[in-house]
């Protein structure tokens, strides 16, 4: 009898627990929207992970950067600035040793002070293959991290690797020594409390819905942040995201619909701006092993047949035309090289006549169904029409975005029109496409020994003066061989309410909300 009673009580408890979990959504704590001191940001994509070493999505990066910080950061204009380091690093003459002095006033959200041991621990963790950090390949040139004192740390490299400072913001974060063992991977992925140094302290999140932070009262930057509460709200539909902004349910939104952007930014009560996303690249990934792209003159003819200004008009100013894998507004852009493969229909006809395919050709081009940064479907139609003038027939095939990326990575495509985004660094996207063994190399199958040597050489260049001639030569080679047909560079765009102060569009694409003052 007693036993029966106990069983039924257990059942009752289980039933109560079940009912309680069922009732959870109705009893969720309040997430105030647009209230005083609260900044609400509308994002199009779900925040898949908050772990800084496993980032693959720019919306997740924007959220993660509220919690995690780095030795240096790339600011909204693309400049490298000290962050947890007191200044920029000292680099040895051979470019193999980088020494950072740390700030002495930084505390983690758990109250623990930041030391060089934490920096070493964070990088050692990422570099350990057993930890399967997604971004480990980016940090592989680091040979070892040496703690010189509690506030000084030295990075020793296997070879010169100057651009690595630019990769920290997107692909790294500093966490306390021992925190990975203490908390486990899920803590970092879903609820990283106590492990960051950033302006926001994680409060709660709900999958596909929101992530909420509160102001870090001990943040090392004075009088920052100005918000008391920060909410990132996932709003996938473009028009609904705009409605959120107009109804003041969100004060800042990312990825506004390009067609409406110009009109919306002029509306009373709203502001908007764009900034060229220096790491982005809209291009046709041509597979140089497959005809007709096995002929350099055909590739050049195709590049010269495309009127990029006309293509750019489709995007209402959100695409800067460029015939090279470099942004036309970047300091390392080689205009002369770009002009040599830019639109010139007569030159295109001449090149085609000299190519292996003087009577034109036909090829399949895959394009993504879902837009990433830009919707390229209309651009593909314009390119198709422009190439038809040279008797080049483009057969368009729309595939799911991830499938397009897979085809390019595996080198299965003949041609694919895609938009890629990388850190705002001159060499990253060029290396990933044209350096053997890199992620998208098979998508081009273009190998040039001089280019490879120049990419290696670029890693030793630590100043613009050193890097510019290298980039000039790289772009000349890419213009001469035209291994891909480039269309231009996408813009990062945001809309926000006029009452919001201090918001700037980030050239790195991820929204920077640390310094924003909500209205």
């Amino acid at each position, binding site marked *: 009898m007693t036993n029966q009673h106990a069983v039924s009580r257990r059942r009752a408890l289980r039933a109560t627990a079940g009912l309680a*979990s*069922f*009732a*959870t*959504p*109705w*009893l*969720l*704590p*309040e997430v105030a*929207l647009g209230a005083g001191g609260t900044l609400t940001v509308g994002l199009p994509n*779900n925040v*898949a*992970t908050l772990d800084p070493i496993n*980032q*693959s*999505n720019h919306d997740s990066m924007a959220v993660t950067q509220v919690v995690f910080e780095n030795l240096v950061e790339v600011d909204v204009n693309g400049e490298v600035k000290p962050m947890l380091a007191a200044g920029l690093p000292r680099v040895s003459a051979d470019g193999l040793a980088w020494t950072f002095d740390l700030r002495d006033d930084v505390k983690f959200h758990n109250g623990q002070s930041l030391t060089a041991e934490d920096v070493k621990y964070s990088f050692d963790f990422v570099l350990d293959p057993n930890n*399967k950090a*997604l971004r480990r*390949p980016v940090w592989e040139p680091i040979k070892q991290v040496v703690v010189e004192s509690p506030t000084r740390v030295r990075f020793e490299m296997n070879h010169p690797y100057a651009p690595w400072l630019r990769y920290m913001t997107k692909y790294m974060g500093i966490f306390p020594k021992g925190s990975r063992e203490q908390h486990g*991977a*899920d803590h970092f*992925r*879903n609820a990283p409390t106590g492990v960051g140094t950033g302006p926001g302290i994680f409060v709660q999140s*709900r*999958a*596909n*819905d*929101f992530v909420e932070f509160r102001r870090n009262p001990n943040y090392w930057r004075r009088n920052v942040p100005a918000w008391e509460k920060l909410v990132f*709200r*996932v*709003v*996938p*539909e473009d*028009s*609904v995201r705009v*409605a*959120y902004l*107009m*109804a003041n*349910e969100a004060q800042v939104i990312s990825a506004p619909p390009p067609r409406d952007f110009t009109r919306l930014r002029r509306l009373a009560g709203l502001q908007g701006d764009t900034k060229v996303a220096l790491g982005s690249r809209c291009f046709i990934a041509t597979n140089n092993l497959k005809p007709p792209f096995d002929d350099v003159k055909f590739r050049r003819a195709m590049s010269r047949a495309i009127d990029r200004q006309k293509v750019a008009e489709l995007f209402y100013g959100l695409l800067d035309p460029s015939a090279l894998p470099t942004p036309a507004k970047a300091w390392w852009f080689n205009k002369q090289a770009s002009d040599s493969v830019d639109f010139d229909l007569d030159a295109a006809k001449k090149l085609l006549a000299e190519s292996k395919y003087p009577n034109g050709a036909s090829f399949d081009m895959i394009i993504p169904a879902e837009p990433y940064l830009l919707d390229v479907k209309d651009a593909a139609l314009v390119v198709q029409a422009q190439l038809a003038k040279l008797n080049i027939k483009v057969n368009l095939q729309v595939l*799911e975005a*991830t*499938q397009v*990326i*897979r085809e390019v*990575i595996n080198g299965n495509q003949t041609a694919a029109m895609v938009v*890629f985004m990388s850190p705002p660094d001159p060499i990253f996207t060029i290396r*990933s496409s044209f350096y053997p063994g890199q*992620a*998208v190399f098979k998508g081009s199958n273009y190998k040039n020994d001089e280019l490879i040597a120049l990419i290696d050489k670029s890693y030793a260049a630590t100043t613009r003066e050193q890097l510019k001639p290298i980039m000039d030569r790289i772009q000349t080679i890419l213009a001469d061989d035209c291994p891909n047909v480039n269309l231009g560079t996408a813009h990062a765009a945001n809309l926000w309410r006029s009452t919001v102060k201090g918001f700037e569009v980030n050239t790195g694409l991820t929204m920077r909300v640390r310094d924003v003052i909500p209205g």
Partner: protein
Amino acid sequence: MGNALRRVAFSGFVLFVVSLLLFFLTRAIPVSPARIVLGADATEEQVAVFDRDLGLDRPVLVQYAGWIGGILRGELGNSYITNRPLGAQIAQSFPITLELVCLAFAFALIVAIPLGVLSALNAGRAVDHAARLFAVIGVSIPGFWLGLLLIVQLAVPTGLFPPGGYVPLSRGLGAHLNSLMLPAFTLGIHYVAVLSRLTRSSMLDALSQDYIRTARAMGLPAPLVWLYAFKNAAAPVVGVAAMSFGYCFGWALIIEQVFNIAGLSRALLTGIRERDYPLIQLITLIITAIFIAANLAADLLNRALNPRLGAATQ
């Protein structure tokens, strides 16, 4: 009773077949979830490690056995993307969808049945024409368009309703119901149209029967005559209404997206986009189970309301 049990057993079999189809179809999607989780620039080696860790490199039948075994044991598994237990995610999102569907359905029933009856009792008059016009519009307007229209033309300019999102009950009953008003209306309006048309035609049919004529000839008061007619007209309406409840979960897929409600359907769409196989399978199975249950309920209710149906199949 035996017949009802047979129907229940058949429903279980259908669910099993659906689970099998669902699993194999999900695995037929060409891109591994690794590519979504790890990003475009992940190496093939990283993708292979991801697949091995999650058992995606095993034969599909072995994967299915593991999955369905887990479901039967009550182990719903974890998300491939967030590694969070799916049970918790379902417990968060399902009640939201259920509430939305229940509200929409209640709205549909409360409006549709009186409207259909009123239309039938006033057949050929202005009220009937207006009700039929309303029904045609309700059936014809796409839910996603109506939703966007309500957001842009009603919620944003007036501020009476939020433009989207789900307000939990903890913020007050008024705010909570207010956040569901437009989505429930958008979801329910289609069924108002469907059910009111059915009620009208069913009622007209009942009103033309001999027993109603007899009742009228015997001088029964009109409300009583209408009640008798409605009792007989209700059977097909109840059957279709029960099935509509299942269909509502399908339409909620679109409505939740338009109104930015993080319910079951939103979780499903995100799961599809992120190739979160266990999440896709579980949610689709839940929606299938609801639909099968709604069908079963419709069938059993029809038999209860019309015993001749049961007798005919015995």
